[in-house]
């Protein structure tokens, strides 16, 4: 595959964009990405079907963050209590029940930090190089589909996008 042409399809609705992605799936073409001004479930489902990504890896980072936070909270409270064995009124040196509050808060804190950092990391952010085919309209009122195709497939894919409802299809050098 030479892959030297990019087709940028502009769609008025997410239905049309998702429909075009489904058509690409049957073509079958996998070298594409979409742009949308808001998270569209239809586009997400269509893209998932093609790429078989499954669920976002952010979940795993959050799980790891939450577990790390809970363990850190436990170590901080119980560990420091045991380090200095201060007997106050015969109460247990490490009182687990009140420590649950600290453990819970630290679990949340680390889970949240895991969610945000993994979102940035897995989304390739921050990045100040614009993705190929990006138009400012894709952040406002239009949906975009950018497909990298071999020279011989350009006409076929262009027709496919127009059939799905593309308002315009622009050819760009990849």
């Amino acid at each position, binding site marked *: 595959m030479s892959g030297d042409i990019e087709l940028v399809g502009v769609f008025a609705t997410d239905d049309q964009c998702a429909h075009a992605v489904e058509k690409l799936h049957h073509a079958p073409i996998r070298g594409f990405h979409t742009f949308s*001004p*808001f998270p569209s479930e239809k586009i997400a489902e269509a893209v998932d079907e093609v790429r078989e990504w499954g669920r976002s890896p*952010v979940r795993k980072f959050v799980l790891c963050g939450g577990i790390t936070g809970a363990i850190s909270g436990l170590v901080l*409270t119980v560990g420091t209590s045991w380090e200095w064995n201060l007997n106050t009124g015969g109460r247990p040196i490490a009182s687990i029940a009140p420590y649950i509050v600290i453990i819970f808060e630290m679990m949340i804190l680390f889970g949240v930090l895991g969610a945000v950092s993994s979102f940035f990391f897995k*989304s390739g952010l921050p990045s100040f190089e614009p993705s190929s085919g990006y138009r400012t309209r894709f952040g406002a009122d239009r949906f975009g589909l950018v497909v990298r195709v071999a020279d011989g497939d350009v006409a076929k894919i262009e027709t496919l996008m127009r059939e799905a409802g593309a308002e315009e299809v622009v050819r760009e050098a990849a």
Partner: protein
Amino acid sequence: MAAAVDQSKYQLTYLDVDRTAQRVMAPAGLKYWLWVAFCAFLVAVGGSFWTRQIYEGLGVTGYGQPTLWAVYITDFVFWVGIAHSGTLISAVLFLFRTRWRTAVYRCAETMTVFAVLTAGLFPIVHLGRPWFFYWLCPYPNERYLQPDFRSPLTWDFFAISTYLTTSTLFLSMGLIPDIANQRDIATGWRKKFYTVLACGWQGTDRQWRNFSMAYLLLAGFATPLVLSVHSVVSWDFATMQTPGMHSTIFAPYFVAGAIFSGCGLVLTLIIPMRKWLHIEDLVTIWHLDSLSKVVLLTSLVITYSYSTEVFMVWYAQDPIEIMTFHQRFFGAQGYLFGGMVLCNCLIPLLLFSPSIRTNTIWLFIISIFVNIGMWLERFVLIAGSLSTATIPTQWKFYVPKATEVFITIASFGWFLMNFSLFAKFLPIVSMTELKEGIGWLRKSGRNTYPYRKAA
């Protein structure tokens, strides 16, 4: 289905949302800057009183035995409570996919962050030696002794700092797609500013996929967090032996009160804001009506909590508790309790009327009463209970002095100044979610269009 819908009845388009946001964020006029300057002036006045307090000590306040917790702790609980409705609207209602939240949640979330920032100042203001506030941080002293992790005050440090971090990140993450939209439109220094803040966001399928999952999980974390934070704040009081405070009902009672007061303040802020910023098309009567129903519901929960509290005192027949509550109702400061019941239990009942729920002037007035009532509730609970603690010979009613009054007023100035600056430089309504809502309405083929301005 979607093709059969008459598109002409939908007045708002995706571009309308962008245009409105752009108009709201346009360079400000003289009135706006005068307002910000006025808020800054209030902060400066409060700051000067605080400086005097630091210099001369807490003796310049009305504090004294037996009331050593009063207005500052009242302010702390009040502002933490205000913060909670923001999380309720942004996180809890997000999990329930409640559609009306889209227009008001950014405002509520912003309110959350600035309210927590304001609340966080008060435990420091309350300290006689505020420069030692870091003693609450979990680090050992010179003898390697850590803070007492059994203490609700230490829990507070963890809860509030986690809450501030989470709500700030939640707000910041939700802002990224909207800031990217502004980056594409803006010119000059604003373009550079938004380019940095947008972090290169372009709304690709990969970015949205990770964004949606991270946002969902943040909402999932924020929901139990919001319950835990105000429960922890309530345990500052409930774990004490003081009559009038030592109660197991406090955690749910505080959470309901927090949501009640926070939704009240959202109404107080958003009603004039939608008028001044001309965003009636985005924040409609439908949204205000829905929000006022939450206020009504939480008011009923609060009323039930007050009744339960009194019932428990009567049922337990503890003479000291009975005496404390008798003083609360009929004592020298009984009028504060009366005001609290009037503002929190009786006036919100007007919201049963649909015509009042859809009248912005009435809603605004009621929301002001709700704010006053909830501040009074915390004051009655804290200063009132301590004033009439166990030994009657030690009773002394607390009366705030100018220092507390001006520092409290300054906290409102601080909050409003930050909020106003945010509203001018960053999107105060979520453009992304409003657009998502428009798409949903179009697909669902609804005959009514709740985003339209009420007739």
